[in-house]
C-alpha cells in the first residue's frame, strides 16, 4: 500500500466527520499545521495571564479580585490541556515553551496590548474571550480528537469569563461618569485588536485552504469575524457605548453589520514584534522559565533520590 491510499483513508475519515486520534496515520503537513495552531493557542492562554494578572493586585473589590484570580487560573488550566493535546503530536511542552521565548512560535497578538485601567479587564473578558469563544465553538468540531475535546471543556469556562467581563463593563457603563469614561476608553482601545484576533482576511490567509480541507478549521477568518461583530454590536448598544468605527452600519437586507477597514499594517507590525508590549511579554516568560530552572532541577533530583532510596531499601 502506498502513501496515497493512507492519505485517502485519512481524508475519508475526516470527510465522514470522524476524529483523527494520536495513533492514527496523518500527513506530516496535518501534524505540523496542528502543532502550530495548538501551540499558538496554548501560548496565547499563558501569555494572556500576564495582562490580566497585571490587575489582580489592584482589583477594586474582593469579589472582583477572586473572580479575576479564578479566571487567570482557568487560563493556566487551558494552557495545560492544550499543551497536553499538543504533546500527543510529538512536541514537548518544554520545547514548545522554548519556541515561544525565542520568537519561533506565535501567540494571539491581542495580548501585546497593555491593560492600563481596570475597565480593560472588563473589555478583555467581554471582547477577547468573546472573540475566542466564536473561534473555539467552531473548533469543538475540529478533526483532531484531543484538540476537539479540549475545546469542549475550554468553551464552557470561556463563556463564564465572557459573562463576567460583560458584567464588569455593565457596572462601569451604568456607574459614575468617570467609570463610564473608563469603559468607553477600554472599548476604544480593544475593539480593533479584537477584530484582528480572527487573523488575516481570507484572501491573505496562508494556512486557510488546507486547514479547511482537513477540517482543522471549520469556518474562515472572515466568517468568524463577521459572526463576532453581529453578536457584539447589540451588546455595545445595550451598554450605551460606541465602537470606534464611523463606517459601522447594519445592512438591513443581509442582517449583517458592515464594518470599516481593519488596519492590517498595525496587525502585521504587532505580529512581527513591534506591538506595545511584545518585549515585556516575552521578557516575563523568559524570566519565569529561567528562574524556574533550579526548581525543576531540584524536583527532578529529589524524585531520583527517592526512587534510589526505595530501591536500596528493597534490596
Amino acid at each position: 500500500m502506498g502513501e496515497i491510499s493512507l492519505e485517502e483513508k485519512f481524508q475519508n475519515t475526516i470527510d465522514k466527520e470522524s476524529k483523527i486520534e494520536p495513533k492514527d496515520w496523518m500527513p506530516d503537513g496535518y501534524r505540523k499545521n496542528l502543532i502550530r495552531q495548538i501551540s499558538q493557542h496554548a501560548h496565547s492562554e499563558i501569555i494572556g495571564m500576564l495582562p490580566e494578572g497585571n490587575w489582580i493586585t489592584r482589583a477594586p473589590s474582593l469579589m472582583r479580585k477572586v473572580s479575576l484570580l479564578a479566571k487567570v487560573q482557568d487560563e493556566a488550566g487551558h494552557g495545560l490541556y492544550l499543551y497536553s493535546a499538543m504533546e500527543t503530536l510529538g512536541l514537548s511542552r518544554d520545547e514548545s515553551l522554548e519556541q515561544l521565548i525565542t520568537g519561533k512560535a506565535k501567540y494571539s497578538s491581542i495580548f501585546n496590548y497593555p491593560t492600563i485601567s481596570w475597565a480593560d479587564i472588563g473589555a478583555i473578558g467581554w471582547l477577547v474571550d468573546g472573540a475566542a469563544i466564536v473561534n473555539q465553538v467552531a473548533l469543538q468540531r475540529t478533526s483532531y480528537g484531543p484538540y476537539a475535546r479540549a475545546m469542549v471543556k475550554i468553551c464552557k469556562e470561556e463563556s463564564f469569563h465572557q459573562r463576567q467581563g460583560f458584567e464588569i463593563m455593565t457596572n462601569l457603563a451604568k456607574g459614575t461618569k468617570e467609570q463610564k469614561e473608563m469603559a468607553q476608553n477600554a472599548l476604544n482601545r480593544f475593539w480593533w485588536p479584537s477584530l484582528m484576533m480572527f487573523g488575516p482576511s481570507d484572501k491573505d490567509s496562508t494556512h486557510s485552504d488546507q486547514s479547511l480541507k482537513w477540517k482543522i478549521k471549520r469556518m474562515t477568518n472572515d466568517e468568524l469575524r463577521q459572526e463576532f461583530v453581529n453578536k457584539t454590536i447589540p451588546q455595545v448598544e445595550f451598554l450605551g457605548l460606541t465602537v470606534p468605527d464611523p463606517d459601522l452600519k447594519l445592512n438591513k437586507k443581509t442582517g449583517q453589520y458592515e464594518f470599516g477597514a481593519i488596519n492590517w499594517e498595525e496587525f502585521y507590525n504587532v505580529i512581527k514584534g513591534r506591538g506595545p508590549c511584545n518585549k515585556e511579554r516575552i521578557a516575563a516568560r523568559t524570566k519565569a522559565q529561567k528562574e524556574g530552572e533550579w526548581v525543576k532541577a531540584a524536583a527532578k533530583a529529589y524524585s531520583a533520590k527517592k526512587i534510589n532510596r526505595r530501591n536500596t531499601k528493597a534490596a
Partner: protein
Amino acid sequence: MKLSNLETFCLILADSNLILGHRLSEWCGHGPELEQDIALINVSLDLIGQSRSLYQHIAKNGETEDDIAYLRDAKDFKNHLLCEIPNGHFGDTIIRQFLYDSFHYFLLEGLTKCKNNFLRGYALKSIKEVQYHLKHSGNWSIRLGDGTNESHNKLQESLNNIWAYTPEMFELNTPEIQFYEKLGLNKDKIKNNWINHTNNVLREATLKIPESNWGQSGGKTGQHTEHLGFILAEMQHVRRSYPDAKNW
C-alpha cells in the same frame, strides 16, 4: 475604632490571609511551571476567600467586606509580619508559606472544637483547604531542601531569612490571651504542634533550624514592616481613587 476581642481575633486572621493571598497572587503568570502557577493561585484564592468570610462576619453598621479591606490604613491592619514579606524566589515563597500554613492548620484545628459557633463552622470549612496548602508547601520544602546543592543552599537561606518572623505567631497580646481562654483554645498545644510538624518537615528537607529565637513582631498591633504600605497602596488604589463609585 474600638474592637471587641472577637473582632480583633478575626481581623488578625483575616488580614493575615488577605495579605498573604495578595503576595501569592503576585506570582500569577510568573511561576516556575504552569502547575505551580495554578497551585499558588489556588492557595491565594482560598486565603482571600477565607478573609472575606471573616470580614463579612465582623462588618457592622452597613459596612461591607470591601470597606474593611480597602479603606483602612497600615496602622489598622493586624496581619502577621510574616505575611507581608516580599515573595523573593520560589523557595522564599515556599518556606514563608510552609511556616504560615503549619500555624494556620493547627490554629484551625483548635478552632474546630472552640466555643464560638461562627468560628467553629468557619474552621471546619477552612481546614479542608488549609490541609492541602500545608501538604503542598511541606512537600515543596522537602523537594527543594533535599533536591540539588543549589536548591538546598537557597532554601536554607530562605529559612534563615524568614525565621525571625515566626515567634510573632505565638506571641499573644492581652486581648488575644483572654480570647483564646474564652474560646477554649490551647495556645501551648498549637505551638507544640507547630514546632513538631515544622521540625519533622524541615528535618526531612535536610534543613537546619536557625538557633536564634529572637523575633520581629508588631503586626498584630499595627506596627508593620516597610512593605505593607506598598501592598496597600497598590491594593487600594482604584477603590480609593473613585470614592463615588458604588459598583464595580
